[in-house]
């Protein structure tokens, strides 16, 4: 966009002036999200992409007016929620107008019979959960970003919460959607609860990351707040035993709210991290890993961070040492719901764990995980300031492929990054592998190269071994280049679909491989 004054004038016809900004500080904020590369850009003072304006509509009609105005000027629009995405999904690659939806933050109502809530897309995750809780309900969606992400962001990127094995991912909760299309039309998809015939447009809009339309409202399934919870920590002699137990739990039809398995390295490091309650196990279950917790501790001294940076430049040493660790792994489970069902499911799961040589460790590990589950996502900056980088990669695969993906990724990243993994979001037919990695390089440019190399190596390894690019972070900009390998000829279908639905070609361009 060359003439920002013309853009401002046009937007002024759609919104009051106090809800349009072109201040440089604001444009900077909306030029990035939490994709580690954008954090590196920030640390280095780089701003490769900037929006031309940021707007704050308060309802779908205002969003539609903005989109129409932008279509007339051929200016891209980028929906913006909490900015917590980690794939660059809101980076304004071709400039344009970032549409911050957080002023649309109402819970419009709850249908207590069919258990459906009508919510604005801009409402923050923790806020919607608090409102639902006040009425005796829960959405059951608890991403680690819940305090800084929105319902619209969840829907755009197919988010998963920590309790997805019981409540499903966000796409499983969608009953209907309202969205603003590229021509300014407001469409509502509110099908009956039972659906048959024709395209389910919810399934097309969810996950489209703003490339087809801007989701402004959703009808989501809610559940009564669980009356009862059962917590348990388990230790298994090997990763394979843990995975087999996890699979059997899911294929038996049990629905744990939480079932998370930590690989040997993760288990070992967490033991080192320690816990006041139980030095053997109860410290294991931080949402991300304890070593990263140490890395990310903002109170860590400069010397410590510098030493860590030097160590991370040679990850091969750490990884080789890690491969000699004992094979024991740890798991936490939480079953919840009405008491008889939660108790019965918990007890049935225990039988499975014992059959797979699991050693029961009591409630404390799972309770500790619950307490700390949001504790780590806000402590990354110290690592980046030390010149290192930390990132996470969440992929999923059928059960057959899970072990081979795990071993192949670890092997192929040995010389590139320190890496560990946990397994969560388990389903009947597979589960997610959540890799955490950290790396560093002596020179800043080399750091970017290494970061890109880690990602391209890891993702191509996953794809070659039968996994998918992403389980719940989405594609955004960071994985866009691999979408052809992921979708094959369907990427062309997606392109055709986008051409029809976004004739002006303004909806969040350059994302999802388009």
């Amino acid at each position, binding site marked *: 966009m060359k003439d920002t004054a013309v853009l401002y004038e046009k937007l002024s016809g759609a919104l009051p002036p106090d809800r349009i900004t072109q201040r440089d500080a604001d444009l900077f904020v909306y030029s990035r999200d939490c994709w580690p590369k954008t954090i590196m850009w920030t640390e280095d003072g780089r701003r490769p992409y900037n929006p031309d304006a940021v707007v704050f509509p308060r309802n779908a009609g205002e969003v539609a007016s903005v989109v129409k105005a932008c279509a007339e000027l051929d200016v891209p629009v980028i929906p913006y929620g909490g900015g917590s995405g980690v794939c660059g999904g809101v980076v304004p690659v071709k400039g344009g107008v970032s549409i911050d939806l957080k002023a649309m933050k109402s819970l419009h109502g709850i249908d207590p019979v069919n258990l459906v809530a009508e919510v604005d897309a801009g409402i923050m995750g923790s806020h919607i959960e608090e409102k639902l809780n006040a009425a005796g309900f829960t959405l059951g969606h608890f991403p680690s970003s819940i305090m800084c992400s929105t319902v619209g962001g969840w829907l755009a990127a197919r988010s998963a919460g920590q309790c997805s094995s019981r409540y499903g991912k966000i796409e499983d909760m969608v009953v209907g959607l309202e969205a603003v299309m590229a021509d300014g039309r407001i469409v509502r998809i509110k099908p*009956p609860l039972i659906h048959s015939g024709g395209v389910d447009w919810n399934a097309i809009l969810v996950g489209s990351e703003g490339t087809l339309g801007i989701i402004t409202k959703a009808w989501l399934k809610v559940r009564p707040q669980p009356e009862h919870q059962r917590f348990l920590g388990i230790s298994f002699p090997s990763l394979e035993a843990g995975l087999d137990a996890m699979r059997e739990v899911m294929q038996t039809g049990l629905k744990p709210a939480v079932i998370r398995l930590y690989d040997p390295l993760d288990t070992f490091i967490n033991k080192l991290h320690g816990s006041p309650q139980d030095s053997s196990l109860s410290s294991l279950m931080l949402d991300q890993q304890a070593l990263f917790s140490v890395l990310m501790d903002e109170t860590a001294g400069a010397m410590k961070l510098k030493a860590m940076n030097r160590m991370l430049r040679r990850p091969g040493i750490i990884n080789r040492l890690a491969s000699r660790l004992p094979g024991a792994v740890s798991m936490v489970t939480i079953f919840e719901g009405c008491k008889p069902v939660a108790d019965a499911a918990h007890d049935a799961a225990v039988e499975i764990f014992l059959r797979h040589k699991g050693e029961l460790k009591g409630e404390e590990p799972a309770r500790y995980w619950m307490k700390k589950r949001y504790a780590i996502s806000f402590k990354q900056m110290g690592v980046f300031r030390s010149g290192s980088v930390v990132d996470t990669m969440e992929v*999923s695969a059928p059960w057959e492929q899970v072990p081979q993906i795990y071993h192949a990724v670890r092997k192929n990243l040995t010389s590139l990054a320190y890496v560990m993994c946990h397994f969560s979001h388990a389903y009947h037919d597979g589960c997610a592998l959540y890799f955490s990695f950290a790396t560093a390089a002596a020179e800043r440019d080399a750091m970017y190269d290494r970061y890109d190399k880690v990602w391209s190596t890891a993702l191509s390894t996953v794809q070659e071994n039968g996994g998918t690019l992403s*389980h719940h972070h989405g594609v955004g900009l960071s994985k866009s280049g691999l979408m052809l390998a992921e979708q094959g000829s369907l990427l062309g279908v997606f392109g055709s679909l986008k051409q029809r639905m976004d004739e002006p070609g303004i909806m969040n361009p350059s994302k999802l491989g388009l």
Partner: protein
Amino acid sequence: MDTWIDAFKEAFPQVPLNPMGDMPAEGLIRLAPAAMGNLPGWEVTPTSPSVVPEVLRWMARNDVNWCTTLQAAVEGPCDVYLSGARLPRREPRLQPKSHLVTADTGMSLGDLERWLNNHELTLAPIEASACDITLHQAISGEAFVEACLGGEALRDRVAAIGGILGTGFPFRTRAVPRAATGPDFKYLFFGNHAMRGLMLDVTLRAVPRRLGSPDLWRWLRTTSATAAASLLRRLAQDDYPWIALHSFPTDDNLWEVRMAYNRNHPLAEPMMDVWEESSELALQSGPLTASGGEVALPAAEGPWQIWAVSHASLRKLLGRIDDDLQINVFKPQHDHVLLRLCLPGYTGDDADSRLEEYCNNLMARRLYPHQAMGEALGDQREVSWLHDLNI
């Protein structure tokens, strides 16, 4: 005379291309004789999966319109009918750990179910009358299968599909659980009568078939169908692993909710063995498959029944039932609700007592939001536990 015929025969001498009238009655004519006037004049029969892409690419290049289902044929215009019933049907491939089975869409639901049973797996309770339809018919004409699988659409079991786009290019979605890699493109092909492409194979999630695990049945008596429906809804919303619901009348104007749960295994056990040969219990598929969200239940000539095999589908069904209740679809002389429950992880008396405790707890605390339910179940004297019914 269509000009493309000779060219096609020259390009694909090995692929049978016959006048439509020559095709054996495979359902098309039998189902819709009135539509015959609109049907395409020719039928092509794929002889192997490998030839289909070439055929469809050729048709795309030569502007020949093809269709695979009755609906698409009638809506036309179509030049050639590509028989879904004759699509390839090779031996299915199984990923045993993930319970994922990949089958050609020319295979029938019944054949696939039998194949799965041989591997100690099952797809779902499949009504006997649905066993002959192919996977392609089932998925591209999704509504029918929604009935076949007892209220759960077949799409809920589809992990991936592969096939040919209208342009002739092959496509394949990936059988990975819950990917976050853009829209779920499978949904472009479900229920669309192959208007966007032809599905040649499908990967489905099967579930273990638990043999030799008898079910335990209980009856819960309520005073109205509304109360029974509310009970079912509440059970579903509490994630009770029930299996199916049906309907039964009683003579004394009470409603009986029939419950059963599996003695030996926490998995919700499909009901195929119980129901598949029972025409009396067959679902009348029409009422529940109306598109556009409108329910059009026919005049009840006898009891109508509902099947469902998952919590999600129960929720869906109960949402629909609630709507129906407002227009008085439940008719006391015909309609009843039967709930089959499966209690996780417990056996025998233990399961019995837990289930009873659960229901009593619900009633004692008057958790039911529905007024009728409160009236029906507020007084526990109206609830009685009857003896096991082994069927």
